[in-house]
């Protein structure tokens, strides 16, 4: 028996959220006395894939078929099920994301397995019961559920586990599952990727701006701080509605849910719908000129002041402390 982890590949390497999924899967494998296998699809660097071992995997199944380089949840699920059958996997782990959820769901339906998404902690396993804790009501609460089906598909949220990477390497084995034409009926006509390749869901630090930024032309100081910190940039809903920033930066209840180690909110009031997207963050810093801004109630550190005056000073302080 093997715990199987599906990983997402970005620029030929394993995404950070997927590294967490491997570490999570390896821990579960230890509890179950099982081995840890990773499934990687599409073009990827073999040496990069071997680093799955850093996070506890012993084996990586790699199908380098270029047909699988483009995100395709239908084909991925079809391949994942074949890998699960080959490895006799009863537990399948993925990182929660648009793609991860879709692959998890489709694989679960094929395997008649349960799919539990948004998991925030390691499972509790004892005497044949398997319990997981998941985030519900957009981070306002948690549910502990017993997973009863024989096969369990688990999509874990960022920061569900803190990996402690080692120097171990995994062996990478070629894997050639069957593919079906019916999984390739869609034609991708165009892909628009943001120039910065730091993704919001993967980022450890996010600097985010709200309507207090006053206009799209004022984002320079925020981007500079983000650059100094190696952070991704995000925004509130009105900011993307006004087209000041691209839609994929919109964070909150109706946007992306993020869980970085550090979230720095600049000129965002902290409406409950915005908080719903950031309440998984480890630390929150709020900079707002209004001391009554509700965001301060959800913050760990706060500065009451003018963002345009404070942002450049923070950037300097970061650069100075290097």
């Amino acid at each position, binding site marked *: 028996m093997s715990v199987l982890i599906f990983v997402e590949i*970005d620029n030929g390497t394993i995404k950070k959220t997927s590294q967490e999924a491997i570490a999570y899967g390896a821990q579960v494998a230890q509890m179950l006395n099982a081995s840890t296998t990773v499934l990687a699809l599409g073009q990827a660097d073999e040496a990069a894939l071997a680093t799955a071992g850093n996070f506890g995997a012993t084996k990586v199944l790699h199908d380098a078929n270029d047909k699988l380089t483009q*995100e395709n*949840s*239908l084909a991925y*699920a079809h391949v994942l099920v074949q890998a699960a059958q080959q490895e006799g996997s009863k537990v399948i782990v993925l990182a929660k994301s648009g*793609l991860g959820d*879709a692959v*998890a*769901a*489709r694989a679960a*339906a*094929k395997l008649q*397995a349960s*799919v*539990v*998404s*948004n998991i925030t902690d390691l499972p509790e396993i004892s005497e044949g019961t398997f319990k997981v804790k998941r985030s*519900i*009501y*957009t*981070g*306002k*609460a948690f*549910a*502990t*559920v*017993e*997973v*009863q*089906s024989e096969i369990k598909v688990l999509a874990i949220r960022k920061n569900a586990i803190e990996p402690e990477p080692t120097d171990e390497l995994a062996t990478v084995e070629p894997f050639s599952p069957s593919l079906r034409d019916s999984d390739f*009926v*869609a034609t*991708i*006509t*165009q892909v*628009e990727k*943001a120039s910065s390749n*730091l*993704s919001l*869901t993967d980022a*450890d*630090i996010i600097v985010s701006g709200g309507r207090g930024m006053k206009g799209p032309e004022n984002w320079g100081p925020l981007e500079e701080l983000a650059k100094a*910190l190696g952070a991704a940039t995000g925004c509130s809903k009105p900011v993307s509605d006004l087209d000041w920033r691209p*839609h*994929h930066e919109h964070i909150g*209840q*109706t946007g992306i849910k993020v869980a970085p180690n550090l979230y720095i909110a600049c000129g965002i009031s902290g409406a409950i719908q915005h908080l719903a997207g950031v*309440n998984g963050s480890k*630390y929150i*810093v709020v900079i707002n000129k209004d001391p009554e801004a509700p965001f*301060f109630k*959800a913050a*760990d*550190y*706060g*500065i*009451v002041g003018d963002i345009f005056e*404070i942002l450049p000073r923070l950037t300097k*302080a*970061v650069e100075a402390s290097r």
Partner: protein
Amino acid sequence: MKILVCITNVPDTTAKITFTDNNTKFNKAGISYIIGPYDDYALARAVELKESNGATVTVLNVGEADGDPQIRKALAIGADDAIRVNAEPTDSYFVAVQIAHIAKENGYDLILMGRESLDFNSGVVHGLVGEMLGIPSYSPVMKLDIDGTTAKLAREIDGGKEYLEAPLPLVLGCQEPIAEWKIPNMRGIMTARTKPLNVVEPVEVASMTNLESYSLPAPKGECKMIPAEEAESLITLLRKEARVL
């Protein structure tokens, strides 16, 4: 064209969440319910497609009778008829089996859902239903046009957008800016009363998960305020105290 829109009946976005019965039941007291915001985008786009391309729009909810006002609202916004599967939506798999069952019976060209529900936040029901029906599913979809039997859509991918074309039938999880939320008008509200709302009993599904208990996040500690004059000290605190830099 036949469109099915799957809607959830969820606490409004500002609701304070609490539990009763030893943290095993959601406390409905004082909660006002809404159509899931993402489902509302799906519904709005379905009604637009009905006007532009000609279609019938059916709304479907798996839930108990207390969701009927939200279903009526969907009818007032422009859906033609509604189906409610009379059951507590216990988990995603259960819900997906019910939706797939209705879809197989009636045959839809397009099944629109929200990107995720506000209560379960799984983002998995579209994938489950797509697989159960053996048709593609895509999410989150931000733009959708139908050209004959082909859907042209844009969906969000990590850090960007992808445009694709796929043959119907499809299952799609929707999000803004696919359409603007619609508010029912007086005429819509009047006609909604006479539109059919068919209540059907669920098909049987083996239980996959069982809720143990709910819990709330630990209350947030005090926010440490840093005077604006000393803003730079934030960086030191983040480094030495929080250890996140």
